């Protein structure tokens, strides 16, 4: 019954619903299981038929890291070991971050110098084995410790919607609010910018979370942000089109805009140097003097709760963002 009523409104299915009554040839996809000839839903969600597969797009549930997904996640360090950290990635399984996967050269037993309990990191899921042991890595361009900003949590199943098709939604929010944002697949979102702007961005994100399954949300969002915007630049239609379809921003490089509040923080070069292999201890200590050092000075430690934004942060490279976004098969039809 869902086929002709349109691509807009998808049928809600519950565990045990038979999905292939009218289309017996379809294969069992995500969120489904096969029982003899029937393909049935195993979770509550929206029925979605895509290239011979029946999927159920989840409406609720926790974040479960999947093998080979390379999800970008925002984690909170839970524990330190001599050569690794346990990182809470908002999943039933903590992520293990080994020193070899950290962007620094860490001596045995000195892990706490670099990351301590409560610190927040931007990381990627590297591997998940059959017993769900999760390894995460920070050894990729743009992955780093998040020293300032705010972290909010959303329902992980709404993340694809918050990012939007090809990153359109998040690009929209960034554009209108001047806030720097990383969206972790695990439902944690990092925001940095001026306080009232961050607040606006959060409100926007909460709205998406709430109305996630409504069609035409991107336009709705644009209207909302426009109504809020005091400093929204005037766009021509072509410009709008540009940023909407293109996560790599439209006119006026978005990074420049979003750096606005933060001013003179380290830029590209620092990421590169961070990623360089095995510098001697002294150097690495110096280069990122601000990490363990600053922490000791003012006791600033990022935790999942709000903390004031401080200048001097690096942003994920545009190509990185695009790559991440391309990984995500946009689950929703717009």
């Amino acid at each position: 019954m869902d086929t002709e009523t349109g691509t807009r409104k998808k049928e809600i299915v519950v565990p045990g619903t038979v999905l292939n009554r009218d289309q017996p040839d379809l294969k069992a996809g995500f969120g489904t299981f096969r029982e003899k000839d029937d393909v049935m839903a195993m979770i509550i969600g929206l029925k979605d038929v895509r290239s011979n597969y029946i999927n159920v797009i989840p409406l609720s549930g926790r974040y479960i890291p999947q093998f080979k997904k390379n999800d970008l996640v925002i984690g909170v360090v839970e524990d330190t070991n001599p050569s690794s950290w346990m990182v809470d990635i908002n999943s039933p399984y903590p992520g293990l971050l080994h020193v070899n996967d950290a962007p620094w050269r860490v001596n045995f037993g000195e892990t706490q110098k670099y990351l301590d309990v409560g610190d927040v990191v931007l990381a990627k899921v590297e591997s998940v084995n059959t017993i769900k042991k999760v390894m995460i890595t920070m050894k990729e361009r743009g992955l780093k410790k998040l020293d300032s900003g705010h972290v909010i949590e959303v329902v992980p199943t709404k993340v694809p919607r918050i990012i939007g098709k090809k990153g359109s939604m998040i690009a929209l929010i960034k554009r209108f609010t001047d806030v720097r944002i990383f969206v972790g697949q695990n439902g944690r979102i990092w925001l940095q910018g001026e306080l009232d702007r961050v607040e606006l961005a959060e409100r926007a994100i909460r709205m998406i979370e709430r109305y996630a399954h409504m069609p035409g949300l991107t336009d709705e969002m644009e209207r909302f942000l426009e109504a809020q915007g005091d400093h929204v630049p005037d766009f021509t239609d072509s410009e709008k089109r540009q940023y909407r379809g293109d996560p790599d921003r439209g006119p006026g490089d978005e990074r420049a805009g979003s750096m606005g509040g933060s001013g003179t923080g380290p830029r590209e070069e620092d990421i590169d140097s961070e990623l360089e292999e095995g510098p001697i201890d002294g150097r690495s200590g110096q280069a990122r003097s601000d990490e363990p050092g600053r922490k000791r000075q003012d006791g600033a430690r990022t935790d999942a709760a709000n903390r004031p934004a401080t200048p001097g942060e690096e942003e994920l490279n545009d190509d990185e963002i695009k790559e991440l976004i391309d990984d995500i098969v946009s689950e929703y039809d717009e």
Partner: protein
Amino acid sequence: MIDMEERIMIENGTRLDGRRFDEVRPIKIEVGVLRNAVGSAYVEWGKNKVIAAAFGPREVHPRHQQSPIKAIVRCNYNMAAFSVPDRKRPGPDRRSSEISKVISDALTGQVFVERFPRTAVDVFVEVLEASAGTRCVALTASSLALADAGIPMRGLLVGCAAGKINGEVVLDLGKEEDNYGEADLPVGIEPMTGEISLMQMDGHFTREEFDKALGLITEASKGIHEMMIEALKRRYSEV
């Protein structure tokens, strides 16, 4: 049940509360009633009022309970002190431990436990008002709460009972019917497949009576299943 004087509970083919033999008490279901639980459900079934909250999959505490190959499903059934006319002494007792166990086992059969090794899926059931058949209501509510929590399951379980009063097999015993009846058969069933994941019996049925009772339950469970699906859909279609 021994030496209990016989009570007349059927007159002119209707029961004490005016129901037919194959009629369940009125049911009201609401899903997603608790903010802090991952999934939750509230079920009113006759005079029963039950609330269920589901959490997980999450880390297992105490650790020794965890299994390296599958998730464990734990249910905690609790009756509020004010749920019955005479105050119930709070805390776990033999009866509630038993019900917790049978519901846990029934749900374990439905959840895809092998997908979440080393975790626990927890369901907490709070009985706010009890009036016969709470374990069935609890099972129904638990199943809904799990579905609401997005936990992969083979299907939704319906709890429903049948019993014998004045020698007649009837569906879904009420308070007096339960107290003075001759038999009670609570069943947990997945109506689409007909799989049974909970069955207990109190009292005696003949084989024919048993088959009849199970038949009544199977039929009734389909209607209840519809209501459950409808409640779940309602939760996610309104914003």
